[in-house]
């Protein structure tokens, strides 16, 4: 019997070692340890043994059982691991196959630039405001100190709706200065982006509809030094902290003193040429015009019921298309309003 047990053990160990699948293992378990299994069959013969032999054989049988069970567990783990490995190997894929196509839409490039600019100004304390595009001449011109007969009022420049030229498509976002100032008391600090309209045929650099961004700050003791500080810090946030700026005198009817702000060309660093050729970015000027600005004209403040001896302010305006085209290297303005998906998808 001892020999029987020993041979069962040896055969079992060998068989288990060779079992390759979970099914083989299960079959062996039943064959070896099951109710009708080999070990059980041997144990059934225990009754024939003497009282002295019984505990010894019992102990031996238990040892054999424990050894088989241990081996069985060990083999189960190994076989399952092998099976999983084989399954994973079989499931392997070509990860370079493209993913499922999920089209994400694109924000219009010009609005992307506008959003960046708005966020910068909001961070600096500007409230963003919007206003009507069909506007009164009173707001678009008169109260901005643009006199009757001024060329910008001509029907060759401005779109009108009425015979008396009193209702028009706004030619600038500056009427928002008036709309804000007549309703709010200083301190005022607003940014007014929006559509504006001028009678220009569409070409690579013109469009009858385009966008401006207007800014206005009114408070006590605002100086031209403040204007410079505010605009330089804003523009450096847009164009980079190392951007070099300059201010030039200019003329706008609704600001005095007035100025334009230029940025030194980042391509040619102000020299106007690259490798002996005229710089294509600034067209040889060395500077790129960024915006027009100035101290709010006292007459404009008074037109809105703000005491110009107590308050002063600055205003600025910039063209969005020009800025977006420069930043995104768009060469033709018409692309912006063409809305070709092949263009939109690039941004």
């Amino acid at each position, binding site marked *: 019997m001892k020999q029987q047990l020993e041979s069962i053990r040896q055969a079992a160990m060998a068989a288990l070692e060779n079992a390759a699948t979970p099914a083989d293992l299960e079959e062996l378990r039943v064959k070896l340890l099951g109710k009708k299994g080999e070990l059980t069959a041997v144990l059934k013969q225990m009754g024939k043994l003497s009282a002295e032999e019984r505990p010894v054989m019992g102990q031996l049988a238990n040892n054999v059982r424990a050894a088989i069970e241990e081996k069985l567990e060990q083999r189960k783990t190994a076989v399952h691991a092998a099976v999983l490995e084989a399954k994973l190997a079989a499931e392997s894929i070509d990860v370079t196959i493209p993913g499922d196509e999920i*089209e*994400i*839409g*694109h*924000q*219009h490039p010009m*609005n992307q630039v506008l*959003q960046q600019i*708005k966020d910068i*100004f*909001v*961070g*600096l*304390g500007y*409230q*963003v405001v*919007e206003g*009507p*595009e*069909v506007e*009164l001449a009173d707001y678009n011109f008169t109260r901005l100190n643009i006199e009757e007969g001024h*060329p910008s009022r*001509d*029907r060759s420049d401005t*779109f*009108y*709706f*009425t*015979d008396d030229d*009193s209702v028009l498509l706004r030619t600038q976002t500056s009427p928002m200065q008036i709309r804000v100032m007549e309703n709010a008391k200083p*301190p*005022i600090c607003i940014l007014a982006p929006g*559509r504006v309209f001028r*009678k220009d045929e569409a070409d690579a650099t013109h469009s*009858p*509809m385009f966008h401006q961004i207007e800014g206005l700050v009114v408070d006590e003791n605002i*100086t*031209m*030094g403040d*204007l*410079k*500080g*505010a605009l330089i810090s804003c523009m450096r946030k847009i164009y980079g902290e190392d951007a070099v700026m*300059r*201010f030039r*005198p*200019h*003329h706008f009817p609704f600001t*005095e*003193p007035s100025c*334009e702000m230029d940025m030194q060309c980042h391509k040619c660093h102000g020299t106007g040429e690259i490798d002996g050729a005229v710089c294509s970015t600034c067209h040889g000027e060395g500077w790129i015009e960024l915006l027009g600005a100035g*101290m709010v*004209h*006292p007459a404009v403040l008074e037109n809105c019921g703000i005491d110009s001896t107590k308050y002063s302010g600055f205003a600025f305006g910039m063209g969005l298309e020009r800025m977006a085209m420069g930043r995104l290297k768009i060469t033709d303005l018409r692309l912006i*309003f*063409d*809305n*070709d*998906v*092949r263009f939109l998808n690039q941004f």
Partner: protein
Amino acid sequence: MKLNRKWINEEFVDLSAVSDKEFVETMTVFGQKVETWERMDAEIKNVVVGKVLSMVRHPNSDHMFICQVDVGQAEPVQIVTGAQNVHEGDLVPAALHNSWLPGGVHITKGKLRGETSNGMLCSFAELGLTQNDLPGVFADGIWILEPDAGKPGDDINPIIGNDDTVVDFEITNNRPDCYSIIGLAREAAAAFGKEMKHHEPMVKGSDAGSIFEHLDVEVPATELVNRYSSRMVANVKIGPSPKWLRQRLRANGVRPINNIVDITNYVMLEYGQPMHAFDYRYVSSGKIVVREAEDGETLTTLDGNVRNLKAGMLVIADESKPIGLAGIMGGENSEIMDDTTMVVFESANFNGTSIRQTALALGMRTEASGKFEKNLDPMMTIPAVQRACELVELLECGDVLDGTIDIINYIPEPKKLPLEPDRINKLLGTRICKEDMVMYLNRLEIPVEGDTVLVPSFRPDLNLMADLAEEVGRSYGYNEIPITEFRNSTQGGYSQEMKLEAKAGQLCRGLGYSEIITYSFVSPAVFDQIRLPADSPLRNALRIQNPLGEDTSIMRTIALPSMLEILGRNNAYHNKAAKLYEVAKIYLPVEGQPLPEEPKMLLFGSYGEGETFFKLKGEIEALFAGLRLKKASYTAVKDNPSYHPGRCASICMDGVEVGVMGQVHPLVAKNYGIDSEVYCAEISFTKLLGMLLPDATYTPLPKYPSVSRDLALICDENVTVAQVEDVITASAGKLLRKIQLFDIYRGVGVPEGKKSMAFSLELRADDRTLTDGDSEGVVSKVLAALKDKLNASLR
């Protein structure tokens, strides 16, 4: 406004030591922005004076000559020419080997019929000159230079006046004085802190009589003519102007004509005061009347065009007819001719707006009208006419008559402004002392007496402290004004509408839609293109009175056409698919109000594989959920002519219609060139603003499981999903948590005219696990109600 630097260097302020680059930079930063500038000699290189030493006939040509030309080098060079007007001993322009001529013409040595030619002898045209620049010079051949023009080897550029730089300034509207050489010289002198030389024109006069014996001037149009000054010249000898004058005109882009016309142009450039010269012979009865034209009058202007005049246009007339279009162009009938002997100089100040409007109406903006429209200084008419007469005497081309006719209707009062250094410093943020301010103003020829600024007549733009602050500021240097770290006390931000718009945009893009930007104005034809009924109130659109074209002549009252146009364009570009959105304003006229309402619409548009009604509907639902809006309901719309009658729904929230969606009617799609299915939605973004749900608060998660019961219902074909859902919702009671349609089936097992709709009902209680009895109870109530209300039964 063009400025040739030599002119101001020679006459007004010598800045010849200043490089072109420095000049341009300094002027720009001082406030006179330079648009462009160029050296006049940039185009001509290596062209010199040559002396023809000998000429022999070319052995292989019957018309060419082989010339030995002294070009100032050790040895003469051989140049072959085909010209017949050259003689031994002539001085000629010689383009040497590796030389450049205007237009990028490159001359190199070569062989002409076997003979070496080391360059080219030039005609004046080849040097960029015209007969006007060189009156009397033979045009069809080599330009034979004057014997004293230079010596062999001299650069040709100085000889033809090209040793100059032309600077083109952008002059701002408020500075009419800078449309002149004198005005720009004044700015240049101030910018460089130099003294400017002034020249007061002096007329010697003659014994040829007085203007009053010949001319009478009347100005009935007092409102449009501020001043009309006139002098006359007798015994005029028309001929070419001298070289110095011609070269100054040429450098400024003005074509020399003859001495009298050149003088008027020269004075216009120098003083900025347009002048005109009439041939006195054609001034009928010796009378000039400056009046408004009558409707139907015509005038042939100097350019040969017949102009049909209208009332209100200002003309210079004689007793019977117009002889000039005031401030714009003279008439052909009084033009200076070669045999003109008596000339009337006009130096006038006209109303700028009137001149501009007339020039615009006639489509003939000229140098003169461009100046007048800026509103010139009325004090300039006399110095200008004096200068013209002085030049007549200098050029010895006539005898100036005694006397000046000077009719003055309006001269502005001399202005005085207080000089307030503290206020100026407070506005600029500077600490400039009063003495420096006075110095800056004086440099600009603005006198200051004590604390009073005496504004000169040529500076109508100076009216208040802020104007003086600009003069002080730019003289001090805008870039020198100390920068302050400006800090706002205000809180920046966006309105709720802007935030929602930004969020909607993000959601739309997440759903695969790209943003477009379209014009606010459209063609009136769009209403027909989208099949809008003739009586639709949306056809009442604001009309632009002066549109660029019919295509952009009305303000859109509906944004669908803009979207369709872009979809159509993308389709035309052979883009296989497009999914686009726009937040677009529409412009709705309001009775009795001058301005329209401008609500915003959210437009979706798509075409391409996979686009369906239900895809779009699902996307809209996702957008609404993302924006946290009230529940939307959809009802079929069969009569919206822009949409497919069976595939269009109105979208309502809270009983308010907020939009419409569906498949665009195939006829409409075809109008935009698209044959495939097009889906659009028009949602009032402005209305959505009022449909926001309150901010979410936490609802406890369910403690007890839900049970799901599926119902397959047979009902009539015309019963809608919404109807079934409504009945289920109304009858199920509070255990019902969710209804989901999962199948619609027609075919085997379902009778003709019927359909099967399968719904999954999710039931749950908050306080216990549901029993079979609970769910059976709900289902039987629901089935009873469905049978009763919709005649639907379990399949």
